[in-house]
Every structure is written in structure tokens, then in C-alpha cells.
């Protein structure tokens, strides 16, 4: 579809219609005549013919566009050959177009899901918890912007590649997190979304094998995804990492991820943020039991991550890791410094982490106060239930 869209002056709408037509024709023809030897090329040829047919029909109705249509026909006919090798590369170009910074982020996500992932509008709406009309509208606007503004459907120039790649990876990670943070009720649809993000991340990695961050992101997603069966309990409650039944972790996903982590860490120095986050997830994945976790290694990795991604959340996670490695007092020093800085005042996990460290030191009254504050800020039910239980423990 990307090849067609490029040849049609970036008109992804028409390209989409043409491809759908071609698939419909393929279904009946191939059932009757058998699958051709180069099916992808067959689809492309048929789609081109359909595109030209449609253009002609519409041109006959609208005189004013006659000249434009002739130009489009010529452009479509002049498309380079039908080698199947072109097609996977074109998908990457399409992904870069869908994640172009000229598009609003709220448009990039549904556009990527629709054009690259092939999800339908209802599927996207369900997955992103948006009304269908909203999704449809964002898609229409985004496609128009791609066409009218001349957003190129191609890999960006080498000097622009790192920034654009960051955008593509950020969108894919957003999609993954939409699917990852599901409660039991929505699990089925959302798991497909996470799987879709992984699939697309794999495409990016295979097309840019010497780039470390696509490998890092893919590894990170695989490792997080590997825990999906163990993350949610019978009643739909969230099961913390240390309490998860590790026999329910997906060992295939982990086995795929670990070599990717090594690759991502060594392809370029210093390692990028996805590579480091994946490395941290890998330390957990390698521990057969929670007690066997190499927390010192995790603390070290968070330290490195803080250099490339100096956010308060990273510092918080580092503090938690240090507390696990060296005891609550060590971690509390860092967490208190963070809390006093005020940066994470509205972040429930800051207060929850503080509460946990205080509780482990036996400072129950202070812990209770911190749990109460965390509870004020916590949004979803499984977390609230967990915090309430801890709060009651401290008050006993």
C-alpha cells in the first residue's frame, strides 16, 4: 500500500481502497485459479489497475480534476517494478510517515495502527478507549494532512533518522502500553494490541538491524509481555512482580528477548534508554525466584538509565532498587530527597514507595500517612485495593 500511496502523491486513502479492492479480487480469483507464484506482486498490479479504474471513473464525474487525474495515472503507471523485496522496506517508510512530527501525537497512534497495523476503526476505538467517530475523524484529518502537506512516505534522510526513529519507537511503545495496562475485563482485545506493537517493533528491528534502540524496544516489550499470564490474579487484581508465579512467565518470549538485549547494549555506546530498560527487565527475567534477583545490578542499570533519561521516575525506581540491594534506609535517603524536591508530589507511586520503605523500617505511623497520600492519588481499582490493604496493616 505504501508503494501505491507514494505513487499517488501521498494519497493514502485511495491507495487503501485500491489495495482492499485487489484483496477482494484475489480472494475469488485465487480460489478459482490457484495462488500465483508472486502473490504480492499480483496484488500490487491489480491494485494499480483498480486505482487507475477508480481514478478514471471519478474523473469522468468531475471535469475540474481531469488534468490532475491524468497526472496521477501517469505517476501510478510509472511506479518502479514489482519486486517483492521493495514491499517490506516500504512498510518502514509508511511507519515513518505515520509518526511524522508534523502530525499530532493523537493522530500518529491511530494512523500507525490503521495503515501499518491494518486494524479496523472499531478495533482501534476499542483498543484506545475512544469513540469510533473520534478515531474516524482523526484518521481523516491525518490522512488529509499527509497528502496535502506533502509528508514523505519514506525513510528520512540520515541526519534526521535518529529523531524520527525515536518518534516511531515512542508511538509503538505507547501502543504496547495501551495493551499492557489492561485489567482482566478488557484482557482479550488489549493483549492483541500489545502483540500488534511487538509485531511492528519486530518489523522496525528487522529493517534496521544495526540500530540498537529498535532491538532494545522489542526486547523490552517481549520481556514485559512474557509476564502477562502472571500479572493478573483470579479476581482481576494486579499481582506484584515479587509475588508472581514465575512458572507462568512466557519462556519463549524471554528466550527471544535476551539475545536482543545483549545486541542492543553493545551496538552503540553508551546504550540507549530502551536498551537499558530492557536490560533491567532481563535481570528480573533471569531470576528463577524473586529472592534471587540481582538488585545491585538493577540499581547500577538504573544509574546508567538516569544519565540518558534523567527523569524523577527513573530516580525513584533507582531508589527502590537500592533499597532492595542495601536496605530501606539507603533507598529512603534518595526517595526523601526526591519528595522534598517536589517533582513527584502528585505521583502516587512516590508516596507508595516511601510508605513501603517506612513500613519495612517499622515506622508504621509514618508509613500509614504515606499510604493514605498514595491512596488519594491512585487512579485504578487494583492499585487502590492493594494500597488500602497495606494501609490497614499499618494501622493495626
Amino acid at each position, binding site marked *: 500500500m505504501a508503494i501505491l500511496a507514494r505513487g499517488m502523491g501521498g494519497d493514502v486513502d485511495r491507495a487503501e481502497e485500491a489495495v482492499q479492492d485487489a484483496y477482494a479480487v484475489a480472494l475469488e480469483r485465487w480460489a478459482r485459479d490457484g495462488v500465483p507464484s508472486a502473490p504480492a506482486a499480483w496484488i500490487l498490479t491489480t491494485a494499480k489497475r483498480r486505482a487507475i479504474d477508480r481514478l478514471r471513473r471519478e474523473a469522468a464525474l468531475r471535469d*475540474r*480534476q*481531469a*488534468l*490532475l487525474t491524468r497526472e496521477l495515472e501517469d505517476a501510478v503507471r510509472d511506479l518502479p517494478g514489482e519486486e517483492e523485496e521493495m514491499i517490506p522496506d516500504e512498510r518502514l517508510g509508511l511507519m515513518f510517515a505515520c509518526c*511524522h512530527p*508534523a502530525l499530532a501525537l493523537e493522530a500518529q497512534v491511530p494512523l500507525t495502527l490503521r495503515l501499518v497495523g491494518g486494524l479496523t476503526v472499531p478495533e482501534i476505538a476499542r483498543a484506545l478507549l475512544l469513540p469510533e467517530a473520534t478515531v474516524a475523524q482523526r484518521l481523516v484529518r491525518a490522512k488529509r494532512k499527509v497528502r*496535502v*502537506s*506533502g*509528508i*514523505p512516505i519514506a525513510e*528520512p*534522510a540520515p541526519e*534526521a533518522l535518529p529523531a524520527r526513529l525515536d518518534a516511531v519507537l515512542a508511538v509503538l511503545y505507547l501502543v504496547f502500553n495501551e495493551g499492557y495496562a489492561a485489567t482482566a475485563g478488557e484482557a482479550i482485545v488489549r493483549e492483541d494490541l500489545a502483540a500488534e506493537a511487538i509485531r511492528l517493533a519486530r518489523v522496525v528491528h528487522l529493517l534496521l538491524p544495526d540500530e540498537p534502540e529498535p532491538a532494545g524496544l522489542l526486547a523490552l516489550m517481549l520481556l514485559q509481555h512474557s509476564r502477562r499470564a502472571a500479572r493478573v490474579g483470579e479476581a482481576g487484581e494486579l499481582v506484584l512482580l515479587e509475588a508472581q508465579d514465575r512458572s507462568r512467565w512466557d519462556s519463549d518470549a524471554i528466550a527471544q528477548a535476551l539475545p536482543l538485549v545483549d545486541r542492543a547494549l553493545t551496538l552503540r555506546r553508551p546504550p540507549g534508554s530502551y536498551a537499558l530498560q530492557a536490560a533491567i527487565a532481563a535481570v528480573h527475567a533471569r531470576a528463577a525466584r524473586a529472592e534471587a534477583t540481582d538488585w545491585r545490578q538493577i540499581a547500577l542499570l538504573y544509574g546508567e538509565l538516569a544519565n540518558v533519561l534523567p527523569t524523577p521516575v527513573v530516580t525513584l525506581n533507582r531508589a527502590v532498587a537500592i533499597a532492595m540491594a542495601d536496605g530501606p534506609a539507603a533507598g529512603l535517603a534518595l526517595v526523601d530527597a526526591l519528595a522534598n524536591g517536589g517533582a513527584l508530589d502528585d505521583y502516587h507511586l512516590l508516596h507508595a514507595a516511601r510508605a513501603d520503605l517506612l513500613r519495612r523500617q517499622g515506622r508504621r505511623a509514618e508509613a500509614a500517612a504515606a499510604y493514605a497520600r498514595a491512596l488519594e492519588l491512585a487512579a485504578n481499582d487494583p492499585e487502590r485495593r492493594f494500597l488500602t490493604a497495606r494501609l490497614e496493616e499499618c494501622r493495626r
Partner: protein
Amino acid sequence: MRYMLLIYGDESAYSNVSEADQEAQLAKWFSYTEEMRNAGVSTGGDALQPTATATSVRDNGGEPLVTDGPFAETKEQLGGYYLLDVADLDEAIKWAHKCPGAKSGTIELRPIMEFPDTP
């Protein structure tokens, strides 16, 4: 593809600039314009006089309604423009980024609405 490159900036920032600094700034603009011309991407452009010199015109029931000043008061004002003819948006962005106005202001890129020549 044709774009209009619109240069927005805070006019008040120019009032306190020394003559030497003004000349240095102008040199940057001239060299930018030259670079675009040599690359064959710009078909024209102009700097605009400040908004204090602007006149707004509307129609009020058949009579012109003329007032002093620009249409709207904004934090950044339109200071100039270029017309670009480039391959795609990424190339337009490259030139917009090089524009001296991008350092302290905002460049807006607008695709030109093309109409096929009527036969």
C-alpha cells in the same frame, strides 16, 4: 510541492538592538536568501514592515471599514515570508530550520493550494 514559509517573531525584541547587531542579523538573512536561491528552492520572499505600519480593511455593508493596525494582537507577529518549491515537507522543514527567524521566533509552513489550470 509549493509552500509558503511564514516568519513570525516578537517585534519588540528588535527595538533594543545596536546598529552593529542589526547589520550582523541582516547579513544572516541575506546569506540565507542567497543559499535558497542557489539551491533553486525559493521563488521569492520579502521582509515586512512592522505591524505599527499595518492597515486593516474589511467590508462593512458595501463600504470599506479601515482601521489602524493589524487584524489581531498576538505575541508573535508576521515579519516576512518566502515562497518555496521543494520535493516534500521534510525538505521544506530543512529550509525552515535554517531560517534565521527560527532561532527566536516560529516558522509556519503552509502548503499552497494548487488548482489545475482550466483548459
